[in-house]
């Protein structure tokens, strides 16, 4: 069962074929920072970050093939997964911890999120929005669990066991006392929605979201 995260999007699986979020994630990271990428797949993001932003990067990846690809690229990647291995990382070890399109595939998203902000000063989290209008439409009118080009797996084979909406995510961030520094929502074509769009609208029109979070110290951020 631990290979839930294994099907994280940067594997050559049909899940999440478009990776515009990588660029978005990269933009949220300060040059030269220490970055941990969880579920780093074949190392695309780490390589992007190391080559374009001079970060000191580390990765965690469950699949042996993914780890080997990363290691062959000269990246420092450890075999493991978000649910089991974050506990072994010391607090404040990184400036940024990245979790791309993987939160919904973890057993304990809340625990994982808390670990991200313990290990890193900041966390970058991207996830598919289950309240996207096309998905709502499928449930409302077809009465079936949504399947889309972005989420191509049927309910019985999907690794995504903890889907959430943008509003759910914001509520969880609030619950664990973290702060949203920035967020970007992408529509079905991968275009950014206007940042000033009200949350209910972003939650309807957005297909995926990228959040930059910070530990919540009251009165900060």
């Amino acid at each position: 069962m631990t290979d839930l995260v294994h099907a994280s999007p940067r594997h050559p699986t049909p899940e999440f074929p478009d990776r515009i979020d990588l660029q978005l994630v990269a933009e949220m990271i300060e040059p030269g920072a220490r970055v941990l990428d969880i579920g780093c797949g074949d190392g695309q993001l780490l390589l992007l970050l190391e080559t374009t932003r001079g970060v000191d990067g580390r990765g965690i990846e469950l699949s042996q093939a993914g780890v080997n690809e990363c290691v062959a690229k000269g990246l420092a990647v450890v075999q493991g997964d978000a649910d089991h291995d974050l506990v072994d990382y010391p607090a404040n070890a990184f400036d940024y911890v990245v979790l791309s399109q993987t939160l919904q595939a973890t057993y304990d998203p809340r625990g994982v999120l808390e670990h991200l902000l313990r290990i890193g000063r900041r966390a970058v989290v991207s996830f598919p929005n289950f309240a996207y209008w096309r998905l709502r439409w499928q449930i409302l009118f077809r009465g079936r669990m949504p399947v889309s080009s972005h989420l191509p797996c049927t309910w019985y084979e999907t690794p995504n066991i903890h889907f959430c909406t943008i509003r759910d995510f914001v509520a969880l961030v609030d619950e664990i006392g973290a702060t949203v520094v920035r967020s970007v929502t992408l529509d079905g074509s991968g275009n950014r929605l206007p940042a000033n769009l009200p949350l209910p609208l972003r939650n309807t029109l957005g297909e995926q979201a990228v959040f930059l979070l910070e530990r919540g110290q009251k009165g900060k951020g």
Partner: protein
Amino acid sequence: MNEVVTSLTAAARQLEAPDSAVLKLAPEDCLEFEAGARLGGLSIAYQTYGELNAAKSNAILVCHALTGDQHVANVHPVTGKPGWWQILVGPGKPVDTDRFFVICANVLGGCMGSTGPASINPETGEPWGLDFPLVTIRDMVSAQARLVDHLGIDTLFAVIGGSMGGMQVLQWAASYPERVFAAVPIATAARHSSQNIAFHEVGRQAVMADPEWCGGRYLTKGCRPTKGLAVARMAAHITYLSDPALHRKFGRNLQDREQFTFGFDADFQIESYLRHQGMSFVDRFDANSYLYLTRAMDYFDLAAEADGKLANVFMGTKSRFCVVSFTSDWLFPTEENRKIVHALNASGARVSFVEVESDKGHDAFLLNEPVMFDAISGFLDGAWRVRSGA
């Protein structure tokens, strides 16, 4: 019988005139043993493969395991068999001798030309036996560092080894972080487990229970504890394999017979195999060396140097690491290797970790494991690009 005599002579010859290059330290150049002794004039027998580049930046030190030796990638002078890691080290291999200068030295305490309990004690003119000071993994690494100095190499591009070799890799990274650009500890541990100490103790007791061991003075008395050493090797060999691997290879198959003999002959193929392993081992290995080297592994506990905090051992290291473990290795299980990875992560080191799916047990690190090869060659390629600024 003649064959046995020939290989025994060849084995004995390795002690004084090994089929290897030998670095002979000056009598006044003393090595401080962790156990307190100071010995000068030590010999370090070693093999090299490939060419050291002008910048002396392409050297890889291979560290051998308990019963291995410096003959990594050439025909073994005693057994006539291929080098123990010839599958990994050689032209075009993952540790590519067309690009890298590979060094492997017989460990201190060994019996293939480096000074050990079978060497002659210059003060008595007789073999050291148990008068030889206890050797630790750190002592082995100190001796290797003398060799690396002698070869004019400041920083090793990589240090690679499995099992006891992996312990030396970790010790290198801990003792000489600035001299190790990349480290590949394979199927190893930062400390020897209680279970592993227990297995070693069984082996040592088997040797010492052999009357031919003569309190360790068998070389002086002209006898050899072959039975005890063979039993030690048989017991140890089981720990290097796995139940599925044994079952696949031998099952319950009988050896050259149709039915049980209803006696204690080697009815089963596995018995015959183990007896063969035991007997061929004694032809090439010194019993006291076996005691010393197993003890060195038992004493190994890298974190003890840093109040039990392994992460502190590696704090601030610039070396990059690639840790490899095997799923069916129950001697140095993935868990032990992960502890190393966690410590390295906690210390902020650049570490990669691969757990290779294999049913071949601990011995997998010596065998054809393409996933391990890919990981090692990929890691070395990546590290070399950084090292050479390419």
